[in-house]
């Protein structure tokens, strides 16, 4: 037994060695990075402003890495980042409190940005550059966050079986004529939660619940786990119309150019509220110790050149009102967007989720 103990100790020592060797290695590579960098930027480093910022983001690596690299190349400011789900990152920021290494929080959906603000992990930003280019409806009223890209959650229909003149508003998808012809994504996705939250902001809970119930009654099949599956189901003929984010349509269109589907912009009549849009956006963490560079990143992402790339990569619309969308995105046609401030989407999200639960929308 004594020997077993010795043996175990030996084994644990070995493992710890391996472990510490690994972390040493990564520490060293960080150091060497820092070394080469500090030679260029020694002056700045001394002015107690680190030349490195930390970003927590729920945007996936392949959608942000190119910009971070570009930003570093242009400004010399290194970016370290962690990707995870929104809720996890917000919990992490809360738990870390003032010890957090994070300077910037970046995520999709206004609901998540609202929650981060509500949980007190962001700080207000003062930036004329951002105020000048980002429309009011796409930013926090108290400037805790700014939208950087815009996506529309709109309708998609089968060009083979639907006459677009039959389509009009989100609400009208509950009409008799769409019985058994509607496909939806799960209500567990935040995009649908925001859509319904914004409907509550317009119509109130009672009417919104009636609308959602009428959608559920029209469903051709159980809700799908993502937007692409909704479109595939329409292509296959299971249903004729659905609600999706524009860039999912764009991706599918790129893969299958002869897709028998098209986008429709609802609620465009004069008294209509416009198409439901949402953003991906960013804010500066409350306990950032590198506020200046954090702001530099967000302003850089909102500048005209970055906006074109940033929105283009994921086939989204630029949030900067002076920048035109890319050609392929512009080809879907122009639309009027809902101008209600997006922070409503967060505020009313719990109510929206409850409402969808009650309406039996899974």
């Amino acid at each position, binding site marked *: *037994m*004594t020997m077993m103990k010795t043996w175990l100790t030996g*084994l644990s020592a070995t493992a710890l060695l*391996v472990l510490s060797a*690994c972390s040493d290695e990564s520490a060293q590579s960080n150091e060497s990075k820092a070394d080469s960098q500090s030679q260029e930027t020694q002056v700045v480093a001394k002015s107690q402003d680190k030349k490195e910022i930390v970003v927590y983001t729920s945007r996936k690596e392949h959608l942000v890495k190119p910009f971070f690299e570009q930003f570093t190349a242009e400004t010399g400011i290194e970016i370290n980042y962690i990707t995870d789900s929104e809720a996890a990152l917000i919990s992490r920021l809360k738990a870390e*409190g003032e010890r957090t290494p994070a300077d910037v929080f970046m995520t999709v959906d206004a609901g998540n940005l609202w929650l981060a603000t509500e949980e007190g992990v962001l700080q207000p930003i003062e930036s004329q550059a951002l105020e000048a280019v980002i429309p009011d409806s796409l930013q926090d009223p108290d400037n805790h966050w700014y939208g950087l890209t815009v996506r529309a959650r709109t309708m998609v229909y089968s060009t083979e079986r639907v006459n677009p003149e039959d389509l009009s508003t989100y609400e009208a998808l509950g009409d008799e004529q769409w019985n058994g012809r509607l496909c939806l994504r799960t209500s*567990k996705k935040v995009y649908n939660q925001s859509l319904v939250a914004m409907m509550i902001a317009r119509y109130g809970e009672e009417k919104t619940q009636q609308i959602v119930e009428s959608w559920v009654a029209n469903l051709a099949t159980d809700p799908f786990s993502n937007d692409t599956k909704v479109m595939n189901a329409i292509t296959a003929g*299971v249903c004729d119309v659905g609600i999706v984010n524009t860039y999912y349509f764009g991706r599918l269109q790129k893969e299958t150019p002869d897709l028998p589907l098209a986008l429709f912009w609802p609620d465009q009549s004069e008294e209509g509220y416009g198409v439901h849009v949402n953003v991906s956006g960013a804010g500066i963490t409350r306990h950032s110790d590198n506020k200046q560079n954090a702001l530099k990143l967000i302003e850089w992402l909102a500048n005209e050149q970055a906006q074109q790339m940033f929105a283009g990569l994921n086939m989204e619309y630029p949030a900067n009102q002076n920048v035109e969308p890319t050609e392929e995105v512009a080809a879907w046609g122009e639309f009027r967007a809902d101008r209600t401030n997006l922070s409503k989407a967060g505020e009313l999200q719990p109510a929206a989720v409850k409402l969808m639960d009650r309406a039996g929308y899974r």
Partner: protein
Amino acid sequence: MTDNTDQQHSQNASSKGWRFGVLKKVDGFLLWAILLICLLPLLPLLFSWFDLEPELWQHLWNTQIPQLLSNTFWLVLLVGTGSFLIGVSLAWLIVMHEFPGRSILQWGLMLPLAIPPYILAFTLLGFTDYEGPLQYALESVGLGIAWLPDTRNVFGVALIFTLSLYPYVYLLMRSALQRKGRTSYESARTLGYSRAKAFWRLVIPLTRPAWIAGLGLVLMETLADFGAVAIFNFDTFTTAIYKSWYGFFSASTAAQLACILLLFVALSVLVEKWGRGQSRYEQTGIALKEYRQPLTGLWGVLVQIFAWGVFALGFVLPVIQLLVWAIKTYERHTDGTLVLLSHTMILAIVAALITLMVAAIMVWAKRNKESTGRNLAIEFSQLGYSLPGTVLAVGIMMALNWIDGGIASLFGVKGQWLASGLFALILAYIIRFLRIGYGPVASSMSQIKPSVVEAAASLGANQKERFWRVYIPLLRPGVFTALLLIFVEVMKELPATLMLRPFGWDTLAVRIYELTSEGEWEVAALPAVLLVAVGILPVIYLIRKSEV
């Protein structure tokens, strides 16, 4: 019993007596320390009860919970029955029968373990879904979409879990049968029992610890899963946890629901232990030289079709589908995939070694002294496996941050001491997979009967010799099984890795998550194939090593 031999020995070699005395005290201390660390992530969960939101509970109760409980009940029932039937019957087939291709199936039937449920889920769904390969195949023979099987229901989800998790039952059952099932079955047959009677009345009760342990792993993983059920949009109890957190922004309600899940698992474990009571089946004698009965006739053919069918559905077809997608999309992966692979492997190896050590300390403490306290400590140390991964990860993150905060306020140094870095991540792996490491080592240890050690001692073997020449060779199969199972599990692990990894420590699972959560399932196939490929090697090795 070991105590006696060791005491006798320490009397003989008085120079070692004091050391033994100290160690005897230390083993208990270590055990409690392990328990404390393993319960650390549960603390934030318990504290959540101070923040109760009755209105939200009311809502969940009215609209969600009854449906979720019924879904979860049926899922557990189907997966449990399916894994038991497939795992036990295949183990029986492999151990007791001879047929062409047996030596391939022997390890082939373990391979589905290398495919995480979420990968199997998106592969199966991608195959059977609208605009998928199956639809095109049906159309080419003139059949419409009405012929597509609907897999987005409890049967589809249960099929996924059964296919990817039955290997736990198969693995444990196979070695149990090799050790004791065969001998008792053959004796019973000689004594005139019918085949069925000998199997159900003797073999199944005798091997109960093995298949119960296997089923336990299967069901806990099913209960804790979120990835596969989300792909099917199938709501289980875990869904309520995530909905409370992501949808209602109520982390405390999510934690409370997780507590209930945990309580349920803990109670089930206790009920099982209590049900088993004190009855023990000890192995008598050594396994007979293997004789395997040849499979013949129509029945034999059907049985073989069944076995190959499970292998094909659980492994071959999903891998082919993944390969097809991987080839189609491989240009979309520019760089860094090999770096992800190396991270995955380093983490898996380190975590497996350390977890094994912790498990060995627990086994050793139990061997030294059996007591209710120790047994409970051991049981509760392993609860981490039954928590949904994200909940466990948040618990660990919060607990470590409390400690960091404590350090900061005590010493006035602000920093991330524990909560960020490899330490937190490895700790999470240990807490999550201790159950997987403990089981095989404990079962190997229980095979070493005190009389064997006594015999060695009476033949004059000292402690060192007894350790190297009795314990080590007899523990080896269990140790290998534990190491490789943890290795494979850590490779597949997602939520804790996602939340606790240091900058730049992305793994294959993280990449797969990023792609699938954007709906890019086909692009995710390449990292998925790599993950499966790396997982296969240890699985094959594992089976080879455990040959009798």
